[in-house]
């Protein structure tokens, strides 16, 4: 979707290097939400689309105001409620109970789940090799113009732009459908390189290259 998360090329956000920017997180709850999110995914406790595709649906004002792990907290809750794992209002209820000094549930221990999580995070599932790719390395391609209402991995800033296929990366399910559990086609994925002037026009900096991986249906032959 053409949401606020699709940030490439936008102006107005200020400096990158700012105090406090070095650490991955600053509060313990952020680390625990990160872990909780992964465990919810592992145990399939959340609804689709889940993860980043859910975060993209955040209200744009809230998205920008939220810290990174605040967005993760939001998305994991959305998924849990969406699947019916927890009911709407249950989190608020528990917050009131804890804030009032009510009993905290005794920490549940499950060494099997802990071991399984570490093993799961060590698993590697590479892309499949591409069969019969339509484009070949060295070929010029144009990114289709589109305005998808749902999740996509085709950022706005490359749409309509002319690029060159550098490599066939492999093949994977088209995420635009796969995240919703709809029968997604397995498509070749290409590393496509764009010259900076094809994306941004002539700028103040010497030309550079931007490269990204694009699914076949995002691309068309250059005319």
């Amino acid at each position, binding site marked *: 979707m053409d949401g606020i998360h699709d*940030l*490439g*090329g936008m102006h107005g*956000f200020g*400096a*990158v*290097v700012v*105090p*406090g*920017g*070095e*650490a*991955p*997180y*600053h*509060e313990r*709850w*952020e680390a*625990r*939400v*990160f872990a*909780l999110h992964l*465990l*919810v995914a592992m*145990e399939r*406790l959340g609804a689709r689309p889940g993860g980043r595709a859910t975060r993209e649906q955040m209200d744009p004002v809230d998205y920008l105001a939220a810290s*990174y792990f605040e967005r993760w*907290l939001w998305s994991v809750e959305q998924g*849990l409620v969406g699947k019916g*794992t*927890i009911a709407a209002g*249950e*989190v608020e209820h*528990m*917050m009131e109970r*804890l804030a009032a000094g009510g009993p905290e549930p005794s*920490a*549940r*221990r499950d060494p099997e*789940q*802990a071991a399984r999580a570490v093993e799961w*995070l*060590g*698993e*590697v599932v*590479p*892309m499949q090799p591409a069969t019969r790719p339509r484009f070949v390395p060295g070929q010029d391609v144009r990114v289709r113009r589109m305005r998808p209402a749902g999740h996509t*991995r085709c950022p706005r800033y490359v749409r309509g732009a002319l690029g060159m296929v550098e490599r066939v990366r492999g093949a994977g399910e088209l995420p635009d459908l796969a995240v919703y559990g709809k029968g997604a086609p397995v498509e070749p994925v290409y590393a496509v*390189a764009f010259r900076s002037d094809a994306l941004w026009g002539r*700028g103040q*900096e*010497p*030309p*550079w*290259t*931007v*490269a*990204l*991986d*694009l699914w076949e249906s995002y691309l068309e032959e250059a005319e």
Partner: protein
Amino acid sequence: MTEHRHDHHPRPDSRLALRARALEALLAEKGLVAADAIDAVVELYERDVGPQNGAKVVARAWTDPGFRERLLEDGTKAIAELGFGGAEADNLVAVANTPTVHNVVVCTLCSCYPWPVLGLPPTWYKSPPYRARMVAEPRAVLREFGLELPDEVEIRVWDSSAEVRYLVVPMRPAGTDGLTEEVLSALVTRDCMIGTAVPQAGSP
């Protein structure tokens, strides 16, 4: 990570901390997610998985030409030789800097990052300014990091918004001949492997 605490949040986090605690408590009460499983995942990325892994990969590539070749051919397979791999490096591509090409990585749509070799990304990597600007004004961003590259060096920005995760293999600094792999790995900082810095002989 917690040893580098900085107060940066302009608004109080207590409400969010309570919300996170409540969610964890709720899932514990329902018998779905255990506290020690959360601890295990947190510890994994605080203790075992971090940029020290990527630094070992780069130092090996600097000292072993055969490994370097395998790394550039198939990053995921090559890092497995050193015992690294897992979520967010299923399709790892290593991109090597040369005297004429400098690579740098961003994720404009999300904040994707090769966890098994770099750990969890710094806050700036996930921030809107980095995600917005790196693809559109790389030299201005690199200058903020104190990195000035000659005009004739081609900057290649890799947007890892799809499934591939990128690891930058920086150039080995001059004056490091004869150093052991272990000493070399200490020169390879996280930012060198994102591409917002280059290693300096005699640094850390």
